[in-house]
């Protein structure tokens, strides 16, 4: 099992030291379809949990990406500017979107584990956007 935690809006967060890397789940990237444009999140911006961090555009529609926990945007994935499709090809690795300097790393415990997220998807409660 991974060390990622998930939100009901299909973001994942992986804690690495005081940073929390954020992306969208494999399920979400399939729903969103080909990502063609990622608006770069603004480094230094402080966000509360659930606040919109940035948006991404696919061929199909625009989608908001929310901060899974509170924190300040420390890094953005500049590789997405040239290759936004990384979100589809590698949602959990090269397709991370931004990293938060997390206010309190223990906040992720309020989110779903991977196993819980998979149950959430199966339950149909995830029915979409």
């Amino acid at each position, binding site marked *: 099992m991974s060390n990622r935690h998930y939100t009901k809006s299909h973001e994942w967060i992986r804690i690495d030291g005081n940073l929390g890397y954020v992306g969208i789940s494999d399920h979400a990237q*399939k729903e969103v379809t*080909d990502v063609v*444009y990622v608006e770069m999140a603004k480094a230094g911006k402080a966000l509360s949990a659930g606040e919109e961090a940035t948006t991404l555009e696919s061929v199909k529609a625009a989608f908001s990406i929310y901060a899974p926990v509170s924190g300040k945007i420390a890094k953005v994935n500049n590789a997405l500017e040239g290759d936004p499709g990384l979100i589809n090809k590698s949602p959990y690795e090269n397709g991370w979107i931004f990293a938060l300097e997390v206010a309190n790393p223990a906040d992720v415990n309020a989110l779903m584990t991977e196993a819980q997220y998979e149950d959430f998807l199966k339950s149909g409660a995830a029915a979409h956007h």
Partner: protein
Amino acid sequence: MSAMTELRQSPLHELHAHAGAKFIDFYGWQLPVQYTSIIDEHLAVRQAAGLFDISHMGQIMLEGPGAFDLIQHLMTGDLTRTFEKGLGVYGHMCLATGGVIDDIFVYGIKESKRFLMIVNGSTHEKDAAWLRKNVKSGVTITDLENRAGFAIQGPKALAIIRETLAGIAELPRFAFQQIQAGAPNDTFWGCRTGYTGEDGAEFFGPARTILTLWKQLMENGAAQGLKPCGLGARDTLRLEVGYPLYGHELTEDRTTLEANMEWAIKWSKGDFIGRQVLEKQKLDGVKDQLLAYELLERGVPRQGAKVIKDGEPWGITTSGTFSPSLQKGIGLAYAPVSWNNVGARVEVDIHNKRVPAQVVALPFYKPRSLKQVP
């Protein structure tokens, strides 16, 4: 469980499900939106070839000594073209107001006085009712059932067809042929038309025959890069060449002239419903007209996005997308006719941000496999 309207499925549905298609609800039909990726499917059509299920489109047969005159009376296109040159005829069925009921293709056989009319899935019932309302004696209208249809499109489409079927690939663009496949009622139509701007053909016929033909083409074409394609790619492909989509660019509230499609009106033919208003509009000029724009910065315009010029927000986007071929945002919008000058600067409101754009000529993208659009 939530209440669900029963969705109609194409006779090719199981093939799509087996190929891993993702389905959406399209005007009461459950149809593939994509199999692998909209962009991959889009590029397959631009570079090799793609197959599109279009079984949701209505196939209506009009027969009898009065059929020619009836259709001439109901559409902006001129049927003499289908008789004299053996070509399919595109046109609009208009209300008396000039508003567009639907955009259609008609293929006719002079000797048998039979016409196959292909109408949009979203307007099928409305079209059939309009035909029945206007029908005169000497015409039989049959809304064909248990039918299917598909399009094969792309620079390699004709080569793939040749491996499977003789004749069709040798026809000129817009021409058509009726093909006998075994039993007499297995006749199907092969038409050198499409909705992607690429070369290719569309096939319409009995569900069983069309299913077999799809399988054969898929088998023969896979090695040449033929891919099944969903509605997602169908939409980005048609928009890149500036083809209108009913319900977006074409509606009952807009005329053929406002849609900037005067080429679809054959003024040299006789009277047809809507002609009077269209003639007056041509004389007086239209107030609003469909224009095409390209974004000059990154972003993806969507239907409903406002178009602004010199601070005035009088434009409204009817279709917008990210163009996979051009790698930029493109859109069609109704706006004051005075804005429609190639090179004119406008802005498009995307998520409350004004993105600079430029008015361009259609098509946005010129396909390699065809010299002329449409």
